[in-house]
C-alpha cells in the first residue's frame, strides 16, 4: 500500500545522513536570508510533512523558467523533484502524454482538493477564442481556470505569467493575459524575471513548504524577500556610479575597468530583483558583471519602456534602501531630473579629476592618480 512520505524519510532512505540533512537545512535558511536558528524549523518541517503535489502548467511562453529551475544549485532540482515536492504534472518532463497526462489533472484535483500548488509558466492568450494556445483541443485558459479552482495557491513563474512579457509587448497580437487577471479568487505569487533566478524559484517554493505560509508580498504581488531591493542598490559597480565613472561605449576603457553601465542603458536603478546579490547560475556572474546593462526583465512591461541602450530617467537613485512600493509613490519627474543631474555632475567631476591627474602624473609619487583620488 503506497504511503505518503516526508522529506526527511526520503533523505534518509536515499542514504543521506542526518548531518548532511541538517547542513542542507542550514544552507536553505541562509539562502532564504533567515537567521541560523531557523534551520531547526526547516528541519522539523521537512521531517514531518508529505510531499506537496505541484501541478506545473505551460501557456504561451518559451520554457526559460523551467530551464532556469533545473539550474538550481541549492537545493538541486533533482532533490526538489524527487524529495521535496511531488511534481505530478509538468508537460515538459512528465513521462506520460495525451490522455494519460490529462487524466493526472483530474486525479490530483480530486484527491488533493485545496492542497496542491498550481505553478504556471507562461500566460493565456484570449485572442482567437483563446485558441492561440490550446491543449487537449481546448484553450489554455480553460485548463488554467479549472486547475486554479481547487488549488491552494498559484505561483506565477516568470515575467510571462506575472506581467505578460514578450508576447504581451505592443501590440500584443494574441491578447496574452497575465495569470492574476484570469485567476482572481486565489493568492497569486509573482516570481518575475525572464527567467527568474533558479535559486529564487526554489527559494520561494521551499519557503512555502517549510513555513506553510505564503511569502510576504509587495504591492505588485512579488515576494519581498527577493524583490525588495533594486539591482542598483546592491550592485558591486555602484561605487563607480557614485564616482561618476561610466562606460561610454561598449568595449571602451571604462568597460574594461568595470565602470558603471548606466549610460549604455543599464536598468539596474529601476529593477527590483536579486541579481546583484544572489547572482546567476550558482553565483557565477550576473548581466552587469559580464558587461551588459540590466534590461529590467523582472519589471512589468519592460519591453515597452524604451530601448535597452537608452538611459533610464525615471527613478529614485539616492535612497539605497527604498523599496518598490515607496518608489511607486515617488514623484517620477523630479527623480528623473535627479539621476540625470547626478550623471552630469559626476561626469563633470570625472573630467575634472582626469585633468588633475594629468597635471600630477609628472610626479613619480602619483603614478596611479585614479587610485589616490578614489576612482
Amino acid at each position, binding site marked *: 500500500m*503506497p*504511503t*505518503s512520505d516526508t522529506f526527511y524519510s*526520503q533523505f534518509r532512505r*536515499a*542514504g543521506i545522513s542526518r548531518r548532511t540533512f541538517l547542513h542542507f537545512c542550514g544552507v536553505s535558511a541562509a539562502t532564504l536570508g533567515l537567521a541560523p536558528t531557523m534551520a531547526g524549523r526547516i528541519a522539523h518541517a521537512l521531517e514531518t510533512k*508529505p510531499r506537496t503535489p505541484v501541478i506545473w502548467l505551460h501557456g*504561451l511562453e*518559451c*520554457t526559460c523558467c523551467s*530551464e*532556469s529551475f*533545473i*539550474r538550481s*544549485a541549492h537545493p538541486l532540482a533533482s532533490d526538489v*523533484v*524527487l524529495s521535496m515536492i*511531488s511534481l*505530478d504534472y509538468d*508537460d*515538459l*518532463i*512528465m*513521462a*506520460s*502524454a*495525451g490522455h494519460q497526462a490529462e487524466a493526472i489533472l483530474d486525479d490530483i484535483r480530486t484527491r488533493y482538493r485545496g492542497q496542491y500548488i498550481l505553478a504556471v509558466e507562461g500566460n493565456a492568450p*484570449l485572442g*482567437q477564442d483563446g485558441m*492561440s*494556445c*490550446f491543449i487537449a*483541443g*481546448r484553450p489554455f485558459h*480553460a485548463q488554467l481556470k479549472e486547475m486554479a479552482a481547487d488549488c491552494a495557491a498559484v505561483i506565477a513563474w516568470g515575467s510571462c505569467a506575472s506581467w505578460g512579457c*514578450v*508576447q504581451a*509587448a505592443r501590440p500584443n497580437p494574441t*491578447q496574452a493575459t497575465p495569470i492574476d487577471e484570469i485567476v482572481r479568487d486565489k493568492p497569486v505569487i509573482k516570481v518575475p524575471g525572464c*527567467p527568474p533566478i533558479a535559486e529564487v524559484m526554489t527559494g520561494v517554493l521551499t519557503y512555502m513548504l517549510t513555513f506553510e505560509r505564503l511569502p510576504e508580498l509587495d504591492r505588485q504581488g512579488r515576494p519581498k524577500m527577493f524583490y525588495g531591493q533594486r539591482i542598483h542598490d546592491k550592485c558591486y559597480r555602484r561605487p563607480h556610479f557614485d564616482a561618476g565613472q561610466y562606460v561610454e*561605449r*561598449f*568595449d571602451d576603457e571604462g568597460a*574594461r*575597468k*568595470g*565602470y558603471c553601465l548606466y549610460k549604455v542603458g543599464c536598468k539596474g536603478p529601476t529593477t527590483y530583483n536579486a541579481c546583484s546579490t544572489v547572482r*546567476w*547560475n550558482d553565483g*557565477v*556572474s*550576473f548581466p552587469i*558583471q*559580464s*558587461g*551588459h546593462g540590466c534590461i529590467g526583465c523582472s519589471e512589468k512591461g519592460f*519591453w515597452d519602456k524604451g*530601448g*535597452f541602450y537608452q538611459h533610464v530617467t525615471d527613478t529614485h537613485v539616492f535612497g539605497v534602501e527604498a523599496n518598490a512600493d515607496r518608489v511607486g509613490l515617488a514623484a517620477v519627474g523630479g527623480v528623473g531630473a535627479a539621476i540625470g543631474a547626478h550623471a552630469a555632475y559626476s561626469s563633470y567631476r570625472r573630467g575634472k579629476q582626469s585633468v588633475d591627474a594629468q597635471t600630477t602624473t609628472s610626479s613619480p609619487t602619483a603614478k596611479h592618480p585614479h*587610485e589616490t583620488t578614489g576612482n
Partner: protein
Amino acid sequence: MTVTTPNGFTLDNSGKRVVVDPVTRIEGHLRVEVNLDENNVIRNAVSTGTMWRGLEVILRGRDPRDAWAFTERICGVCTGTHALTSVRAVEDALGIDIPENANSIRNLMQLTLQAHDHLVHFYHLHALDWVDVVSALKADPKATSELAQSISPWPLSSPGYFRDIKARLTRFVESGQLGPFMNGYWGSPAYKLPPEANLMAVAHYLEALDFQKEIVKIHTVYGGKNPHPNWLVGGMPCTINVHDTGAVGAINMERLNLVSSIIDQTIAFIDQVYLPDLKAIASFYKDWTYGGGLSSQSVLSYGDIPEHANDDSDANLLLPRGAIINGDLNTIHPVDVRDPEQIQEFVDHSWFRYADESKGLHPWDGVTEPNFVLGPNAKGSKTYIEAIDENAKYSWIKAPRWRGHAMEVGPLARWVIGYAQGRPEFKEPVDKLLTDLGLPLTALFSTLGRTAARGLEASWAAHQMRHFQDKLVANIKAGDTATANTRKWEPRTWPRRARGVGTTEAPRGALGHWVSIERGKIDNYQAVVPTTWNGSPRDPQGNIGAYEAALLNTPLAKAEEPLEILRTLHSFDPCLACSTHVISPDGSPLTEIRVR
C-alpha cells in the same frame, strides 16, 4: 481513402484515429493525430502546432539593436541561438564587422548550447521513450556496475553507488507519489532494455540533471546569465582585461580558467556517460528501424560555427551548408538564403491567410495574418477540438519549402550532409558507431539515427569548445583584446534603408532571421525556425513534412499507449514556441480584441 503524396508517401486515413494532445517532453505545445490500420500500424499522421505568439509583429518599429533580446525569448530551451541569429541579421544589414574574439566567444556560446541542449534532450526529454524506470527496480546493482564498467571508465560505477540509486528509486516509487513518472508506459512490451541497463540510465538521468547546470556557466561568464544570456550587435558585451586594474569586472584569468575547467568536465561527461549510454541503449533497439521519414531523401543545413570572423563562405563554416534532395547523396546543392526562389513559406494548411495561397513567399516578402478556422470534417467545436481535418487548415505552423521540397533539418541533416561531403570529422564517428553496432549506413536514416547523430554532435561540439577557448586565449596573448566594434553603433551612421539575413544551426536545425530596417527602426522581421521545417503541415502540392513522414508505417505495441509516437517525435526535439510567427505588412490590427 488512400493517397500518395508527391514526395512519395502513402497516406490512408480510413483506420482508427488516435489523438495525442498534449505531446509532452517537448518545448511548447504540439498535437498529433494518427490513423492505425488493423495491425496498429500508423498509416496517416497529422502534426498540429497548437500555439502562436506573434513575436515578429511585436518587433516592428523597434530598435534593431534590441531585436536579439526579443527573438532570444522565442525559445528558452535553445536559449541564445535566436539572439545570435538576430545580431548576425542586423550586422549583415548594416555592414558591421565583428572582432575575432567576438567570433570565438559567440562560437563558444553556440557550442555550449549544442552540448547542453543535446545532453538535456537525451536524458530528460527522450530517455523515457527507451528506458523503463520501473524495470530498474529489478536490477542487480552488482551486475549494473559490471555493465557500466564494461562500457565506460566513468568513475561513478561501483555496486554501492547503484545500490544507493536503486534504494532511492524504490522508496520514491513506494511512496505512491510518482511525480513526473506517474501514468508512464512502464512495463510496455515496447521497452527492450534489461533492468540493469534501465538502472544505469536512471542513475545517469539524475547525474545529467545535476551536471547540466555546470555547462551553462560558460554562458554566465560571457553573457551574464543563463537562460537568456546577453548579446550585442557588433560583438559581445563582455570585455577582456587580463593584465590590468579592473580585471574583476571583465574576462580575466580566473574567468578563462573557469570556462576551461567546465569545457574539460563537459567533454568528460559527454564522452564517458552520454555516448556510451547512447550506444548501449541503441544496441537493444537495433531491430526498431522506424522513423526515417524525409531523412534519407531531403535534408537541409545552413551551416554554422565560422572559424574566422566576418567570412560567411561555405569553406569557413565548421558545420556544413547544403541541401540534399531526392535521396541523391552524391549531389550537395548550394543553399542561398537570399534567393527568393529557394526558401518559401506556404500557408494553405496553416492558420494564416495569403492573398494567393497556392503560392509561397520568401521571408523578406513574408506575410502572416492569422486565420483560425477548422475544416468541414473536423470533429468537436472550435474551442473543443476532438479531431482535426487535415485536408483544410490545421496548424499554427507554416509550411516552409526549399525549391518546393519539404526538408528535414537538425543534427541528422547536418551529419548526413557532412558525411556525404566526405568530411572525416563527420564520416569517421558515424562509421565507427555503425560498425560497433553492426549496422549498415541505411540504419542512420531512422529515429535511432537521429538520436545518435545528436549524441555524436554533442561530443563534436564539446571538443570544438576547447578549440575556440584555446583560440581566444591565443588571440589575447597575441595582443588582441577587442570584443566589440561600435563604429556603427549610432543609428545616424546607418543607411536609410537596409535589409539583412542571419543564419545559424540551432540545436534543432537550420534557423534564419530576415530583417528590413528603415530610418533606424525595424520595418519587417521574419524567422523561419527548425521546427517550422520539421513540424510543417502539408503544402498546396500535398507534400508532407518531416514529423508526419517519420511517423508513417510505425507499428504501435498498444494502440492506446503512444510510446512509439513519442519516441519518433522526440527524436526531432520539437520546439513549438519557436515554430510559429506572424507579421502584417501594412501594420493593421491582427486580432479582434475580446474582453472576458
